[in-house]
């Protein structure tokens, strides 16, 4: 240990080695992350079954690619280090986006704040054949009850919403194929739940 601590570079090989030490640590960090996020045994087996056969040439290419990548990190580690915070932040943003609930309603589709009693009064369905229960929102009553039960915070507001046909909805911004109406639970301008009353 003492001899390692007292060692000083005396040639360009030595200086290069010292320069590459942080690169080695960064490489270990990348490899650890790669190992931690490796596909499951099941996924690997599935890929093996459906994937094409890997020839010796493919393996050689993969090996060469790995060598080049390692050399890039060892020699170009300052650039990778500068990029690392951005990469981590981007990864966090992606994970947070994935975890977001996927609602059709968006703030731009909100129409007006509504009292739940008024919403119920307006919701009764007329059916001359008498097949709809005399409950708010008819057959959708259970959904309405669940939606109301979730409005527990004093800051929660109920808003009606309307999405025109072709409006962009959800995290993936799909176009709706029909008009959509319903109610949304809104808190501090954010949509936390929705109850759709009509759609295709």
């Amino acid at each position, binding site marked *: 240990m003492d001899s390692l601590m007292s060692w000083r570079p005396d040639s360009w090989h030595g200086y290069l080695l010292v320069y590459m030490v942080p690169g080695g640590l960064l490489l270990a960090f990348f490899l650890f992350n790669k190992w931690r996020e490796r596909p499951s045994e099941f996924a690997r087996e599935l890929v093996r079954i459906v994937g094409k056969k890997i020839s010796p040439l493919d393996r050689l290419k993969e090996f060469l690619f790995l060598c080049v990548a390692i050399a890039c990190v060892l020699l170009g580690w300052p650039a990778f280090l500068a990029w690392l915070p951005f990469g981590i932040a981007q990864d966090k943003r992606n994970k947070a986006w994935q975890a977001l609930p996927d609602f059709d309603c968006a703030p731009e589709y909100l129409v007006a704040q509504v009292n739940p009693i008024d919403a119920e009064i307006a919701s009764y369905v007329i059916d001359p*054949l008498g097949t709809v229960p005399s409950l708010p929102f008819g*057959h*959708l009553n259970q959904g309405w009850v669940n939606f109301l039960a979730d409005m527990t915070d004093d800051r929660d507001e109920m808003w009606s919403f309307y999405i025109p046909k072709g409006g962009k909805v959800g995290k993936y911004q799909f176009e709706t194929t029909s008009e959509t109406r319903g109610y949304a639970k809104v808190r501090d301008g954010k949509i936390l739940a929705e109850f*759709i009353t009509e*759609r295709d």
Partner: protein
Amino acid sequence: MTAQVSERLIYGGKEISLFTNPLSLYLKATGTCFESPHTANWRGYVGTWEILEHEGVERLYLVALSAHKTYKEILSLSDVFPGQDKVFAHWFTGQLRCPQGAQLEYRHMGYGSIYEYDLLMEFKQGVLVNKHARHNEVPKKKEEKDYPSFLRRGS
């Protein structure tokens, strides 16, 4: 994805295919889901619908249902809607698509196959407000040159 078994619509005394799932909003709102019995029926049920007229107003009703609670256990309309022999689809606003005539092109995906005609019926809160037919043509076959160069088959 495999082509999906269609819903059924009793229309003009005949039972025809229906390439729309009007029950989906009801199932989502009430948190109901069924089990898929096979890859041609991912939604796990087949509903039979009928448009019934009363005093000049035509409404959409679910009149029969075959829904898989499990692979073996099949639920009927009265199991899902106790005490009902028909259900008014008051939640449905949108278009029903009923394919008619010969199949022009088979597509191995959802309701993607193309038929000679589509009978299109517009509903507002379960009430029929408009209907018309659309004539379809055989889609032009894509040739290699229609693809961008990076997607063309190698020689």
